[in-house]
């Protein structure tokens, strides 16, 4: 896979070309910490850092820690400084970056992998494709390594019995286009690479999990049967609501594009006429022996091309919703028929 890379762009020649990872292995501890942080912060959305190591084809995430949310003073819920009152500390004024540095220094003292490999964010019912996410991920991938990933956890969907944890990375075509600010056309489905996540535990922790399973046998049964819940309407309604909102946004973007094409056409028309006139003037000048004027002066009144990014992101998000809905309706059919068969047997 490293052979597929072309020549690196000049400013990145200093960085060694890393083989791209294909899988993300997360430690159970990191996953549990992410779950705890995101669940506690509901209904707000939060983010945090991932620590670990990347080696050959897999990225191992061994630890994670939460980052304080930006608007701390406005919070009255779980993240407000109600319990431990240390307002006078200089720490409360730490920016996200400094907090991260502090935390990593602390963790290094206890021998935790002191290597930031990405970040995580909670998402609500599968909505994640925003400009902020792309910007953040781009910064991580640019400054840290090509293998920086963003892990998305959905607490709402997990409550239905299905652990929803996804890892994404910006594809290299998208990175290239973003870096060079070109408006190359990229397919919406190709801006993000999804990487499969696997959960692994060191041996001792596996023993604990075995213990927990044996002891809390009833616990796992509950997970099983929560999945068989038949109430489909609220979930579908929410999803469709989001879908409608995003489709409206997409329609807006398309309208903007149309306006842009119209102005562009008009501009081209004007430019053609101007070029004609210039050519005629040059011919006259050549006939008179003068030096010809440049005939390809750039027009300085070019309309701003609307940002392709928005519509790309919206399309990606819409297709994510659609796949989500498809998966959900698929399993709902199964559950419905299961309930149906129970009824038929009972009667």
């Amino acid at each position, binding site marked *: 896979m490293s052979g597929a890379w072309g020549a690196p762009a000049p400013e990145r020649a200093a960085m060694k070309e890393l083989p791209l990872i294909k899988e993300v292995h997360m*430690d159970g501890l990191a996953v549990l910490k992410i779950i705890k942080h995101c669940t506690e912060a509901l209904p707000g959305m939060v983010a945090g850092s991932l620590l670990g190591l990347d080696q050959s084809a897999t990225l191992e995430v061994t630890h994670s820690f939460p980052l304080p949310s930006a608007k701390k003073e406005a919070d009255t819920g779980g993240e407000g400084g109600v*319990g431990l009152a240390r307002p006078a500390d200089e720490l409360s004024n730490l920016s996200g970056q400094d907090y991260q540095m502090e935390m990593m220094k602390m963790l290094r003292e206890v021998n935790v992998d002191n290597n930031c490999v990405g970040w995580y964010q909670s998402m609500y019912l599968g909505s994640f494709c925003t400009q902020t996410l792309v910007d953040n991920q781009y910064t991580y991938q640019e400054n840290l390594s090509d293998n920086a990933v963003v892990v998305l956890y959905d607490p709402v969907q997990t409550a239905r019995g299905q652990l929803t944890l996804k890892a994404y990375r910006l594809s290299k075509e998208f990175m290239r286009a973003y870096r060079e600010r070109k408006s190359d056309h990229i397919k919406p489905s190709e801006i993000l690479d999804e990487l499969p996540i696997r959960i692994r535990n060191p041996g001792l922790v596996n023993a604990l999990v075995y213990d927990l399973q044996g002891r809390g046998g009833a616990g796992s049964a509950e997970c099983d049967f929560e*999945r068989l819940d038949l109430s489909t309407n609220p979930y579908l309604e929410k999803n469709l609501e989001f879908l409608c909102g995003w489709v409206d946004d997409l329609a807006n973007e398309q309208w903007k594009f149309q306006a842009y094409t119209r102005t562009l056409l008009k501009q081209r028309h004007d430019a053609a006429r101007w070029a004609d006139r210039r050519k005629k003037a040059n011919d006259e000048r050549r006939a008179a022996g003068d030096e010809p004027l440049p005939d390809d002066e750039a027009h300085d009144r070019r309309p701003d091309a609307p940002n392709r990014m928005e519509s790309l992101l919206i399309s990606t998000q819409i297709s994510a919703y659609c796949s989500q809905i*498809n998966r959900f309706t698929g*399993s709902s059919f199964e559950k419905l028929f299961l309930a149906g068969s129970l009824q038929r047997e009972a009667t």
Partner: protein
Amino acid sequence: MSFSGADGALILNDPATQLSRTGDAPAPTLTGYASTNDIVVKVHPVVLFSVLDHYLRRPEGQVRVIGTLLGKVNANVVEVTNSFAVPHQEKNDEVAVGKDFNKQMLALSGLVNGQERIVGWYATTFDGAQVVDNSSLIHEFFTTECESPVHIVVDTSLASDTIGCRAYISSPLEIAGEALANVFHQVQVQLESSEAERICIDRMVKGQAGGVLTPDGIASVDSEAVSLESSMTRLLAMLEAASAFVDKVVAGEVPGDAQVGRKIADTLAVVPRMRPEAFAKMFDGNLQDLLMVSYLSSLTRTQLAIAEKLAI
């Protein structure tokens, strides 16, 4: 005896000479409970995972690790929801605890979740022993941080069949009004996990190949279809077991148990009995809703795919 540590380490004194306690006024306390039987400690799995992880990463030559427990105290229930590791050193009778580290980490954690406060400390077993002399010294340090801290010991010696987790509360042993030593009483520990944590652990167990835990096994985060299938298989297995039992009782092979019989009858009664037409109507209605939504989403996807091809 007094011990000196490097800068930033705590100087711990013999418990006999340390009689005063700095109380934390607003925090609810456990000291009001005369009998330690009342106190229950609820531990979340994330804490255990984090303790074991710390143990695995301990520096060379260190036999056990310690750290701080965070959580909240509610009447006689101590809920431990978070923890962090604290570096420390033990040599014979000398103990040095990273006090500054503790404070710094506490402040950082407080920025993220202001509700959590120190409720105690954890340690792993020391050469197979649960509580050693040095533990009481460390415990004294933690009494300055919170009222009546809980001491949790995780058994990592693998001597027994389980990775046990025990909790202790310490109280001074007084003779003629003079506190001479501390006694650690064991208190009840319960494992408490939120729904999401349970689902995650369930995934860790089931996701491994073949559904059997192996030391190096890697669990995959499965798609919904697969987990649904496993749920249904489970339900089917349970129904079959119940049905087989009933058959055996009817055939006279197994003596019937009235309790079990009643429970089975109750369970069956939960299935709502409706008139077939009413049920069919509901069923069809739901089916049509799902079909319509599925159609709409496929339509949207087709639209997007076409838009992609048209390069706009």
